């Protein structure tokens, strides 16, 4: 069985995000097993629940949430990357982090990579 892991290193306002969402959705519809999406570097900003993107722009975070709900795609955000971007704020973490995301360590990336026959980065 083809298994896929995806790494997002670009911010939610990057045009690459739309490509990533389309790619992931097409893969899921084709029956490819997506073991998870790992948000690293500026990609960690996706997990900020307070980000607001202008309504006439691509709603990256909305679409990731939609995929997460429809296909139960695990969305992991790197804790260190999130912390230095203000997404994790100690006791306030639950208020800041988008509920669709799981806060994980880089070890999760190792885990996803070892389960995936393909690793794709956006």
């Amino acid at each position, binding site marked *: 069985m083809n298994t896929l892991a995806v790494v997002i290193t670009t911010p939610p306002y990057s045009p690459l995000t739309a490509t990533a969402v389309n790619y992931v959705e097409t893969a899921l519809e084709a029956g490819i097993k997506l073991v998870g999406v790992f948000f690293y570097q500026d990609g960690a900003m996706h997990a900020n629940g307070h980000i607001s993107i202008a309504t006439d722009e691509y709603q990256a975070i909305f679409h990731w949430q939609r995929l997460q709900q429809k296909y139960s795609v695990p969305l992991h955000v790197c804790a260190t990357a999130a912390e230095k971007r203000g997404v994790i704020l100690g006791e306030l973490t639950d208020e800041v982090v988008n509920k669709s995301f799981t806060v994980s360590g880089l070890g999760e990336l*190792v885990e996803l*990579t070892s389960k995936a*026959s393909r690793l794709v980065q956006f």
Partner: protein
Amino acid sequence: MHSQAQNKLPNTSKKANIPKKVNNEAGLAIINSKAPYSSHYGKDALDVALIFGSYEQKVSLFFQGDGVHQLIAKQDTSLLSIKDYLKTFAAFEFYDIEHVYACQQSLLTRKLEPSFHITDVQVLSTTEFSAALNQHQHVLRF
């Protein structure tokens, strides 16, 4: 597929010890393409490499383009108020990171001498560089 590529690579195949049980047979290749101190790309790539190393996963490092500047020996970051993450490169052996490759063409373009780099770096021609990259199951680029 990678065994074919290996045959073309006498310089790099000696140490190749590919575990058969894990899915990512030839492991992860990390391409470093950015200069060290103007961004965090190099440090973020290093963090990934060390984690893979500590989980005993195969990981190789590829330096090309401005990324080759990360390999220059005896850099001093004290004037920049930046933490010198390049010091950690000395710990690669401890993390079982055995394969560190630099693109020869990138060195030539930047007029870097063949001896410019830290120890245990293999300088590969463009063809060898891409063949070595092709041996890997997964690639991340920073």
